[in-house]
């Protein structure tokens, strides 16, 4: 992730490299992904027929199959010949930049735009039909269940969750009041980690009965009934020695 300004490598535009921006249909690009390591996918033929420039792309043989492996006579074949229609880029200036983890570089300027079309052969039509069929399928569909799902709640003397809870309570026993000093120490160490605590959280941390805990904390802390940290306890100023910016701001605000 690039956090700082990174210098753009302008070699591409300096050399006035021109590139083509070509729009390729999805099925074709899918086939290209199946290409071999070398990466050859086909050929481009540029010809001049009666003064008109014609550009054509021919898919290489092995990529025409749409099956699992490269079998030429699979059920479906991707058409091979694709004329490219060329456009100029008068209306828009486009450049190409590439980005790697370390560098951004400007590769070049777009000089032509092209769109890859397919010749309307039977093959193509079949292909398209399949595509459409697939895309028409709704994403949500109804499915019949074999067995009706019913959540009938039978009346129960005591729910299992409740049973477990009560057992837990029994084993733990009531919370015992520890020594005042011990509890104070626990509180102080807790407040070192965070500034604001809910009473419930404090109970959990200290494992003290609520009333006892409240007594103790009323000594050393105050309750925030409004403000940002609602319904929380915080240490009194004299007990506090945080060294944070926010603390100072708080204090300033309050003294003002």
């Amino acid at each position: 992730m690039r956090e700082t300004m990174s210098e753009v490598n302008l070699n591409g535009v300096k050399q006035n490299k021109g590139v083509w921006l070509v729009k390729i249909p999805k099925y074709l690009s899918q086939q290209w992904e199946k290409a071999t390591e070398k990466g050859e996918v086909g050929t481009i033929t540029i010809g001049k027929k009666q003064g008109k420039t014609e550009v054509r792309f021919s898919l290489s043989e092995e990529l025409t199959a749409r099956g699992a492996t490269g079998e030429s006579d699979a059920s479906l074949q991707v058409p091979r010949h694709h004329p490219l229609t060329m456009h100029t880029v008068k209306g828009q200036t486009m450049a190409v930049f590439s980005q790697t983890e370390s560098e951004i570089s400007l590769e070049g300027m777009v000089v032509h735009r092209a769109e890859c079309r397919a010749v309307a052969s039977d093959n193509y039509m079949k292909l398209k039909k399949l595509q459409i069929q697939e895309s028409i399928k709704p994403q949500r569909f109804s499915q019949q269940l074999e067995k009706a799902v019913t959540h009938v709640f039978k009346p129960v003397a005591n729910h299992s969750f409740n049973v477990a809870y009560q057992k837990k309570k029994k084993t733990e026993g009531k919370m015992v009041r520890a020594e005042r000093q011990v509890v104070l120490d626990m509180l102080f160490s807790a407040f070192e980690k965070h500034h604001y605590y809910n009473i419930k959280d404090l109970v959990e941390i200290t494992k003290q009965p609520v009333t006892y805990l409240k007594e103790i904390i009323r000594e050393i802390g105050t309750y925030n009934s409004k403000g940002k940290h609602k319904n929380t306890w915080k240490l009194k100023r004299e007990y506090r020695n945080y060294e944070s910016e926010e603390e100072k701001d708080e204090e300033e605000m309050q003294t003002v």
Partner: protein
Amino acid sequence: MTSLGGSSSSTTEYTVRVPKNTSKRYNIMAFNAGDRVNCSTWTQARMERDMSARRIYGDDESAEGAGGSEFGKKQRDEARRRKYGIITKEFKAEDQPWILKVNGKGGKRFKGLRKGGVTENASYYIFTQCPDGAFEAFPVNGWYNFTPQAKHRTLTAEEAEEEWGRRNKVVNHFSIMLQKRFREQERGGDDEDESEKTGKKKKNIGRGGELHITDLEDDLMMSSDNSDSSMGEDADGKSKAKKNVGKGKKKKRKSNDKEAVEESDDGDYEGLEVDYMSDESSSDEEPEKGKPSKTEEHLKGIDEASESEEESEEEKPNEEEAKEEEEEEEGKKTPVQTEKKKKKDSSGESESSDDSDIEGETASALFMMQKKRTPPKRPSGRGSAGSSKTGSRPGTPSIDSATTSNTLRAAASKLEQGKRQNQGPTESPAAKRLKMDPSSQSPAPSGKSTPQPPSGKSTPSSSDVQLTEEAVRRYLIRKPMTTKDLLKKFQTKRTGLSSEQTVNVLAQILKRLNPERKIINDKMHFYLTE
């Protein structure tokens, strides 16, 4: 790529390769053709992601376990979000816009926003030609539309709406941005004093560059404002004045809070025809640019050169005005009469002239400061009668003398002295005037209605406004006015008379004219019909 002539068709073939192992991700950088971007002219370019949306998007890096933290806050927030079904979008760094800076600090800046939906239905590939003649195709990862970013100041939407509302009145559009710049400066001002002064100054300049085109607006703020008839009367075959461009006129214009004035003023005054106002001229002086910088330096003394310059400038537009207003009904307009008024809200803050003189501004800036500090003290009735400063045209504004501090007085007096050197002899130092005023305040309001023996009407010398019968007649013909309003029109600093004298003279004139009386809003108004 060779194509032989001869036969009508010739083809060349190139292989296309799609390299597999590249770690480079290709993107399109699209510019608008109208921006005329030529990448080959770039000497240097820097680019980075614009991560400013990260904090907006939540993922607030509020300190955890640091100051102000709460125990279990994160879990609680998460639980809350789940309970209410709030789904916040993730902050994806990949989708953030780019910021492109070309040619270093002084060069252009572009922002590149990602265009969505590019790779959904079709894939784009970049075909580059290799040295061996083959094509290499790289898939396009993303498409970014780069737009140039303005370096100049722009108005925000609210400011733009404001200015739009004033478009009929403001002629000097250059000063709009200037005001804004000063306002911004003032906000981040270093010296408190300075910023206050510039601030007050700015308030004075205020809705900057405004031209005081007519008295119409003034009339709106007069005591009998509520009557619609007054408006109707005013709009009787007068054409709107158009003043020289570039002569900005500072005018502090506050809306009349007490009335329920229609807020939208767009197009309200379009149909109105208003004449050049003979009493007021917005002939003014230099554009404010020079002023603010000079203000701080020239509190104590004014550059004489600039003074004389201003005054000569004033002469010129006055003459022009005279020519333009030949066809006026009133017809009587002397080049000297360049009375400028500025009416504040009817709560009685005293007016200040809308001179854009340095002195005027400075003094007014200073006095504004004082005024601002003691608005509650001022009784509303004093506004009209109490002009504390005499002045001929580039007069200093009237202030509540009682609140002037010593230092201010000293400064003001120096200003006055500096100015007086160039002007007529009638002016006495400001301090004197100030002292005179409190004494003259009290008798003035009481003495309005009782006609007093003429106390040797002093002829004002080198003043802009003459308290003559003609002038009063003009006013009364136009619309009914109370004595208070009339007094406002003939400010002592302009006429060169003291307030007591003004009252006397005015009373005499009224006696002679014998206008008709009408009670509007419980106040006695005078008016004349022709």
